């Protein structure tokens, strides 16, 4: 098994763990972390799988750089929203959605 494969497999595990975290965890900060785990998993698969012959491929690396920036942006927005929610309600969990 090449290094690339190990990266890809780790990525798959991280992704699955991240999704499970987003679904199961109510605490918003942890949920954001879980989302980042998920993103990192996808990045690892992207780079690792493409380099499963252990030869460097610059294209997925560049894509991952782009992806990281996007993930940073999304994380920042999520944090801002959580802070705002905390300021408004004092809670770090999502309130129930009501129609009234």
């Amino acid at each position: 098994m090449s290094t690339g494969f190990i990266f890809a497999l780790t990525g798959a595990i991280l992704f699955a763990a991240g999704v499970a975290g987003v679904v199961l965890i109510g605490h918003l900060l942890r949920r954001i972390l879980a989302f980042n785990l998920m993103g990192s998993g996808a990045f690892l698969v992207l780079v690792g799988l493409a380099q499963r012959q252990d030869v460097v491929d610059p294209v997925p690396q560049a894509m991952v750089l782009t992806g990281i920036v996007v993930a940073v942006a999304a994380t920042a927005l999520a944090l801002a929203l959580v802070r705002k929610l905390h300021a408004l309600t004092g809670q770090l969990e999502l309130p129930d959605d009501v129609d009234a």
Partner: protein
Amino acid sequence: MLEPLFDPLVWLILLPLAWATLAFVLGPGRGAWPAIAGLATQCWLAIELAQKVGAGGVTNHVVGGWGAPLGIDLAVDGLSAAMLLLTQAVALPLAIYARSYFKLNDPAGTWFWPLMGFLIAGLNALFVSADLFNLYVTLELVGLAAVGLVAAGGGAQQVAAALRYLFATLVGSGAYLLGVALIYGAYGTVSISTLLPLVTNDAPRLVWIAGGLMVSGLMLKTALFPFHFWLPPAHGGAPAPVSALLSALVVKASFYLILRLWLGPLQTVLPAFAWLLAMLGAAAIFWGSWQAIRAVKLKRLIAYSTVAQLGYLFLIFPMLAAHGALEAGVMQIFAHGLAKAGMFAAAGVLIKATGQDTVAGLAGSVERLPVTMFAFGLAGMTLMGLPPSSGFLAKWLIIEVALAQGHWIIAMVVLAGGLLAAVYVLRVLRQAFLLTPASATLTPVPRMLEWSAFALAAASVLLGLRGVELMRLLGAMA
């Protein structure tokens, strides 16, 4: 030699990016006029492009001059051109609407214009991209702009709704991204045109997983039942122009992408999921309609109606190989896009005027806001699928294709869905025709608000008389 300089395809992306940036630099609350001027130009560009595609078939733009698979290609076929047309046609009246709506120093309007610009740019870029990874970036552009718009200036409920929406959209695009990663791993490219001949019937199992991941992620973003949980609070809680943009366009973008994959690179893989999607679509129609019938708040009702109306789109998948199914889907996208934008816009007027967002608060509004209620009625007509609206044509097309394929169950779902839509639309109209309590006071609203809502709703009906052009445009497919 000047031809590439004026390629409408590129300018449909550059122009909104430019006016969004300009609006940001101009500062809080500014930028309405650049946006409206930009959108008017974009409308013209979209029409130009549609004519070009209608006459000459698919047009391409090779970004950087490298060409796929090394570079990124942009491609416009009939489907893309139609989506571009719809986007600009909905956005322009909504921009005019929003200018009046946010005039009174509404905190939600502070950064509306640049956010809207990035949203439109993201949508346009998504509709023309022919590169799976580039599509991921455009998806994120659209998603983050939409979340920003929902959250802007809101209270706790709205922020919570935005967070829910953000998680849904991020998980959705995350799943899509993993799918793209697997595709790249399997084939070494993410260019749609390059992948097209490579993905064959005996594709490795990994590609099936990739297809499943991408479609699941996009389903989540399209709010297909049972992934719709985030939509009603987000669309129901945002300011009216934002709800309109989101319901009319944003959810359609991820649906478009499913279609694009289905008809393009993953055409050998995805049809395995066809009936699953159709069943979920049918469930969405019933569940969404039922919730709309029960909703207390007006905008919540309209948001659930979106859940239901999106269900129709997924009914076409089992029939997509047959002639007419794609046309039916696109007609439904147009019908719902125009009608829902008009309906949310009308709801915004009603809420501003009556000061409350409940169905019960509408009593007597026919008398006092006739233009708005008329707009609401016209939009409702399209959602119910009554002739001569475009919603009717969409319904007709779906039923006819379903009968031709022998899937009469789909035809019955569509017919039943129309009746359920009638129930929730009439809940509102009925209330509006009731006699007014004499004490009720009404805040005056700008005329422009009423008439831009009316224009959208009327367009959704009038399109029902101009179906031939749209069908001809869709004939120019890749």
